[in-house]
């Protein structure tokens, strides 16, 4: 029986008439890396805000660590960063982290360690307000790591950063994930989720569309893109094939063929040639998470 860290039960949040999160249920188990995927405004941050005690729940509930403690006590075992890094502008990085230690009731001995992880050790005595956005975001991660958290919650951690900053943050996250820390990552960037996460929850307009393993979400048989000179006969030929789910004409002479069973490009080429169709273009692809996502959310 895997250890459940967080469980959401029919969580709902309404702001006036609009419903930000609707009847959302899923659970987070120890050791996995979860992604919450959704377009902007789909309720990701609101969901995280609720489990992090800053947004009141309209209905439904959530449980930390199988409901063994109060939310604010549970949060002491959690590391979380939300959209923008919020620290005291006049305090140095080190003092800001000391304050977090006092709130979380943990020893200050870990400060140097986490500052080293995010490469801020040489700037630790500078005031927070002098930091660049990338540095602020890294300090936020350092702060979230102070207590060796049971789970790390990251809300759009690379938002607004330059490519170098994005790369640094991703490397840090990968390193943390590699150490076996449970991670919950909210993002609208698919390759981010695809590269890091093992599980994914897709939401749109506050509703859950999919929850499960990333590789299972990607379990289709892929598609073939082909071009042929005489298109008219070719489509009637395709209509008669049983391994084809459907096909679309994506450009004037190019067809995208979705497969419903495993079928290789070579076999397909051979079949076409035998029937007298000479392909001028042939490529077989797995659907990317992005295409899956667009399919789900459109």
């Amino acid at each position: 029986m895997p250890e459940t860290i967080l469980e959401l039960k029919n969580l709902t949040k309404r702001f006036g008439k609009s419903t930000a999160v609707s009847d959302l249920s899923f659970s987070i188990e120890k050791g996995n890396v979860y992604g919450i995927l959704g377009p902007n405004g789909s309720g990701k941050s609101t969901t995280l805000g609720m489990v992090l005690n800053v947004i009141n729940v309209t209905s439904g509930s959530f449980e930390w660590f199988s409901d063994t403690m109060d939310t604010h006590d549970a949060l002491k075992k959690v590391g979380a960063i939300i959209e923008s890094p919020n620290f005291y502008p006049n305090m140095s990085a080190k003092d800001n982290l000391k304050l977090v230690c006092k709130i979380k009731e943990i020893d200050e001995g870990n400060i140097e360690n986490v500052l080293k992880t995010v490469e801020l050790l040489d700037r630790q005595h500078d005031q927070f307000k002098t930091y660049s956005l990338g540095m602020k975001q890294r300090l936020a991660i350092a702060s979230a790591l102070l207590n060796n958290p049971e789970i790390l919650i990251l809300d759009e951690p690379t938002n607004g950063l330059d490519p170098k900053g994005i790369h640094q943050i991703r490397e840090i996250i990968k390193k943390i994930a590699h150490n076996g820390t449970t991670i919950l990552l909210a993002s609208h960037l698919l390759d981010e989720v695809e590269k890091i996460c093992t599980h994914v929850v897709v939401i749109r307009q506050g509703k859950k569309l999919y929850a499960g393993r990333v590789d299972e979400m990607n379990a289709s048989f892929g598609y073939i893109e082909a071009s042929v000179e005489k298109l008219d006969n070719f489509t009637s030929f395709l209509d008669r094939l049983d391994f084809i789910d459907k096909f679309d004409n994506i450009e004037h002479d190019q067809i995208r063929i979705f497969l419903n069973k495993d079928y290789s490009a070579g076999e397909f080429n051979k079949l076409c040639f035998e029937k007298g169709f000479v392909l001028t273009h042939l490529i077989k692809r797995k659907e990317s998470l992005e295409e899956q996502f667009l399919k789900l959310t459109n």
Partner: protein
Amino acid sequence: MRRLINIELFKLRHSRSAKIMTILYFSLFLSAALLSTIKFDFGPFNFRLADQGIYNFPYTWHFMSFFVAFLKIILAIVIVSMMSSEYTNRTLKQNLIDGLSKKEFILSKFYVSVLYALCSTILLFVVTLVLGLIFSDYDEFQIIFSDLEYIGGYFVKLLGFFSLCLFLGLLVKRSAFALGFLFLLWIVEGIIGASLHDTKFDFISDYTPLNAMWRLIPEPITRLDIINSAAKQLNAEIMQDYSVSIFTIITVLAWTFLCVFGAYRLLKKRDL
């Protein structure tokens, strides 16, 4: 409780404006006291405030409590901004995410307000005692330590005022607006008081927060010897009750509770 005070003091220690205002407050406090001891020499006319009987025990307890209380507005700025800056920096949100509960957050602010009121009260006691020992015409033990109710009244006055500031800081979320709101409240209470004066609803202004705090320590001027003797010469005997009323203390403590509890309810209801 220790942890919460620790957290709040750590924040204040690293806030430049809080440090400057606190230092300003305590130095104004001391310099006002020192100023009264300086002898002003205008040729044939010598004047020293300290010689006018303001440091006579036990009257000095009353006099000092009343006048030093005006300085509380400086500390009010510290209290208001320690509340509202958590909103403007969005650190309140971060504190909650880090594992502080909303109740603990309000309590940490309240405890520090109590601490400020306590420090100010202790300083008032010590300064008054020292100045009194130097300048008072009476120095019997029993006289020195009588009428200490004014010191208690001073503490409650500050506590009530700081709690109100706490509430306004949270309600308005911006320091400048919160102080403006405080000023507005003062004017509104003044209007209520004036318009109800000499009507049967006069008692209502006893209950409004700033008015109740004001009444906690009655004005001491007319009690001063020179004023009294001047009044006697004009055949206008001044009759007034100068004592600290228990009823007013209860009213101010009730407001203190309402402000702190109100701040908690408000924060609890809000989405951050």
